[in-house]
């Protein structure tokens, strides 16, 4: 009784309600406790960028090669680093010393980790705004909380080290503007975001079609010249403010070569769980099969060498035909055009959100040299759809579990990896239980039941996968201790990574198929609450 009084008085006097405070405090405490955790090279990358932007004139930013971690984000991010570097130089001048490579004293850890937490507040603020004016505020509250506490952010930003929380904050802000009907603002924010990190180009086609159709054209197909000019000018202005200094110095060519290095391979070091991971795995299996049976397949010797190098570096297939960048682009664009045609004819908010997710999804599954961290591009917008209908929810669950699991290999030190796993389990349970009740639907036919069982089996398999991945090194070390002469465990070193990648890839591809099916049948079968927003 007294408690009720407490909470109501608190909500009257403060601008954040108590449960939002709780989440903010809890998450901040966790993040602060993770300060001393393992840091990837991205930490040094960002420190180096602080040093570059602070100690060099702007004309040198994209030319500097003092460190191997050269600046390869668009100019807004460079300006952002420049702003961050000013307090940094007061905290500890050594942080912004260009030649002070691999500096990792407590001051720089404290400073950089704190900037991640502080800039992530953009995300928190936007998510709070999402609740206000939502179709179903209590459910949106759960989704917002889950996004703010997303294990992807914890693993990538707060342990591994990046600024994704901040940039997804801008993306969600832009989506929020689209929901609230201010499409011009949405377009501008997305243009700004593109100039922070160009990976968001994955999502650009959906934005382009959506804004063109619903903002620049009237419902009957007449061009709205005023809107069109406003949007075009605004976007051009954003790009000018970003690129102008470099254009004036004639550095656009250099800038682009930094942003788009086409010299990398099909797969990243650890295969992101996309379609190519499956293809590569099939190739490896075929190679084994060909070797063992002596079947007369055409075997590419470079590919054989590629397998023996484990998973690092460029991928060359041994049996299957090699994949070129052109192929990946063709497939991606073909899939995206299907989605975009649908979006063109149904330019509603929900349709846009789904198309956005699907654009990111198809780029992730079929893109060239995709990094596993890009999975956030799918999971974050997809979360907004989670509570729509049971079909969406199930897709969301599969993609989320597979996607987050695929991030675990980023953490390979024992303590951090267990923390990541445990956090994800807790997060998932707290999200799944309330939402699954909210969207439950009785299965319509036998095929639904079978599908349900299969999907649940797949999800249950992650438990065993995790046990396998955790136990493998221990068992391998036992074996190697037993027979040190044979040393057979060595070639199997990458097996857990490969299994993880393939297993997650199955889920990711299946999730994509589900979502695209739902999207194409949306207006007939799968109308949910968000359909009310135009």
């Amino acid at each position, binding site marked *: *009784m*007294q*408690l009720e009084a*407490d*909470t109501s008085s608190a909500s009257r006097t403060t601008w954040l309600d*108590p*449960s939002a*405070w*709780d989440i903010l*405090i*809890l998450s901040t*405490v*966790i993040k*602060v*406790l*993770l*300060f*001393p*955790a393992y840091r990837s090279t991205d930490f040094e990358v960002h420190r180096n960028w602080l040093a570059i932007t602070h100690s060099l004139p702007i004309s040198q930013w994209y030319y500097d090669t003092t460190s191997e971690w050269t600046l390869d984000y668009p100019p807004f991010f460079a300006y952002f680093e420049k702003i961050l570097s000013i307090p940094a130089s007061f905290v500890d001048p050594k942080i912004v010393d260009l030649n002070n490579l691999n500096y990792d004293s407590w001051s720089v850890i404290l400073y950089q980790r704190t900037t991640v937490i502080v800039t992530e507040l953009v995300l928190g603020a936007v998510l709070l705004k999402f609740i206000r004016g939502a179709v179903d505020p209590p459910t949106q509250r759960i989704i917002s909380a889950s996004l703010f506490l997303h294990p992807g952010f914890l693993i990538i930003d707060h342990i591994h080290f990046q600024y994704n929380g901040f940039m997804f904050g801008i993306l969600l802000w832009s989506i929020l503007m689209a929901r609230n009907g201010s499409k011009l603002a949405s377009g501008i924010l997305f243009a700004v975001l593109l100039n922070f990190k160009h990976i968001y180009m994955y999502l650009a086609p959906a934005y382009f079609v959506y804004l063109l159709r619903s903002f620049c054209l009237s419902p009957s197909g007449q061009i709205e010249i005023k809107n069109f000019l406003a949007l075009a000018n605004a976007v051009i202005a954003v790009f000018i403010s970003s690129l102008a200094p470099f254009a004036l110095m004639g550095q656009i060519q250099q800038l682009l070569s930094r942003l788009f290095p086409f010299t990398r391979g099909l797969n990243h070091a650890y295969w992101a769980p996309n379609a190519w991971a499956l293809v590569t795995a099939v190739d490896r299996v075929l190679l084994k099969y060909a070797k063992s049976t002596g079947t007369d397949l055409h075997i590419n010797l470079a590919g054989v060498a590629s397998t023996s190098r484990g998973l690092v570096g460029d991928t060359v297939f041994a049996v299957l035909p090699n994949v070129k960048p052109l192929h990946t682009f063709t497939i991606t664009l073909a899939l995206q055009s299907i989605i975009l045609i649908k979006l063109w004819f149904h330019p509603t908010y929900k349709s846009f959100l789904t198309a956005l997710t699907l654009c990111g999804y198809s780029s992730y599954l079929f893109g060239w040299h995709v990094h596993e961290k890009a999975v956030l591009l799918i999971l974050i917008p997809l979360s907004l759809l989670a509570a729509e209908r049971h079909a969406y929810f199930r897709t969301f669950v599969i993609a989320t579990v597979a996607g987050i699991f695929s991030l675990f290999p980023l953490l390979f*030190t*024992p*303590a*951090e990896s*267990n*923390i990541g796993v*445990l*956090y994800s*389990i*807790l997060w998932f*349970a*707290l999200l799944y*239980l*309330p939402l699954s*009740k909210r969207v439950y639907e009785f299965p319509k036919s036998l095929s639904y039941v079978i599908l349900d069982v299969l999907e649940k089996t797949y999800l249950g398999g992650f438990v065993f996968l995790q046990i396998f991945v955790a136990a493998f090194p*221990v068992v391998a*070390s036992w074996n190697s201790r037993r027979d040190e002469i044979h040393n057979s465990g060595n070639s199997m070193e990458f097996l857990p990574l490969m299994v993880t990648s393939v297993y997650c890839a199955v889920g990711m591809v299946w999730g994509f198929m589900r979502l695209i099916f739902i999207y194409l049948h949306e207006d007939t079968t799968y109308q949910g609450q968000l359909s009310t927003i135009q």
Partner: protein
Amino acid sequence: MGRRWIRWSHKRGMRSLVVPFIFLASVFLKLCFGIGSYSGENTPPMYGDYEAQRHWMEITVHLPIHQWYSYDLQYWGLDYPPLTAYVSWICGFVANLINPTWVALDSSRGIETDSSKFFMRVSVVVFDALIYIPAVLVFSRTWFGARSKRTQDLAFLLLILFPALFLVDFGHFQYNSIMLEGFTIMALNFFATEHDLLGAVSFVLSLGFKQMALYYAPAIGSYLVAKCILSGPTDGGRLFIRLGFATVATFILLFLPWIPPFSASPTLIIDPISRIFPFARGLFEDKVANFWCASNVIIKWKKWAAQEMLVKAAAILTFLGFLPSVIVMGKVAWDLKVWNKSPEEKLVETKDDPKPEESSSHTPILPLLPYALLNSSMSFFLFSFQVHEKTILLPLMPLMLLFSGATPGSEVYQWGALGSNVAVFSMWPLLQKDGLSLPYFALIFLWNRVVGYDPIGIIYTAFPFKSFVHLMSAGVYAAVIFLHFSEQIISPPARYPDLFPVLNVLISTPVFVCLWLWSIKCCVQVSWALTGPSGFEEADGQPQHRKRPSIAVNDASQMRSSFVAKSDRTRAVSLGPAQGKRVRRSSTRSAAGTASSTALPSSPSVFRGTIDSSVMEGRAAASPK
């Protein structure tokens, strides 16, 4: 925050999942702590407590048992009782299976690889989950048996999030959750469910894990003796003999490998004993927030008096310190004893209150136990010899038990929050040395949020103050915040390098002294609630008078609204949860038809009245006319 989330999950139909959630979340937090630094990280050649524990695993797994207490004593020789050694052996055995280099004899000294650190951290978490968490869970279910499920869950959450224990076990690195919390709380659970023998055994196990559990011994001992007094000369005597036998047998079992038939020579037993009780050390180490260290600022004890003299003084003061609770316990038992009454009186009693004597015989004094524990352990902490700053965990444990069931704003709540915060603060110099400043601030922040306590708000509302504890809290928090800030800005003058630790001691000690006095006050109050102050009995039979003692206990509560005052009253005899428990047990048992003979009442309807009145009636009936 804790209340809010437990309510939310109950409403969302996740009632049954609250406990697993809390458990998993706590494991997660513990592992997050584990990422941080620990005592003695990167400080060769001796390192710290972490290395001591790891070294014990190393020696127990590689050496024969009779060398455990004698191997290379200069490098962290084993100086805890045998149960610690056995636990170390288990850990060492597992470590040896996974990766022998972690515990290789001698060559692994100071090993600090990621994986070995993780193993050590996990070993604490595992033992914590095996012993402490079940004990706390059972505690929240038995002692708060009469309270709502939400309260029980909240108590569970609060006890798991015991901040000082968190910092020491999962930050600094020790296995206190086994000894201090686990076995002692388990003993309390057994007492509450009337399994006194098992309780005694688990308390001995706690002693066998860490000799520090002796701090609780006066309270537990006097409780058991009081119980014997209550049961009457024949039953009590039998119980006394059984208890004695169980205690001695457990001790012998623990020390078995060092006792002649199993050891090579009878003198071997001296090794562990002399290691466990080092009388040769000084009065206090470093800066401890106890009486000796605080008064040392003015009176230089070490110059002023000889060592033996001080030992005696410490012993006498400690004895005087825990005496009140022992006396109260004995007096209550004597007042409530039922065995020397005439048969007619007994008959009258059974008419008034048809509780069979056996069931009411010992539970009346159970509510006293936590206060008595607080009293005795706090007096040890304040006055005894060779106290360590981490030892504050011991007095804190009963305080947290009381706190976990308290209503926000009540006196118990305020003292508990103050005690916990100051205890954590008193360990600040130690934690700072260990590189645990960030976890320290993070945890204090989180804990106060979880329990819904706002130190800053207390400073703001200091005047007009509502109670002594409120004013004191405000003053202490202001001082603490001031100290933390000035420490950042000012460096201590060269003449007083220990300026800040000493100030820390001077802030913390008064709080602990007040807690000690408060525990005495509470002991007396609870005893009044149980027996009634003398001269109170004339008005026996009139309800409004019967209520008086319980209000006296709870004037405590500072609650104005009658509703809250009432709910608080149940709480005050509070930790008189035993009453509620009895209600439940009796009804379930009789429902099941297993009401084994006389042990429990056969008519549960009697207990359906409010807990209050049943307590009061029981009291009135039992008190001498």
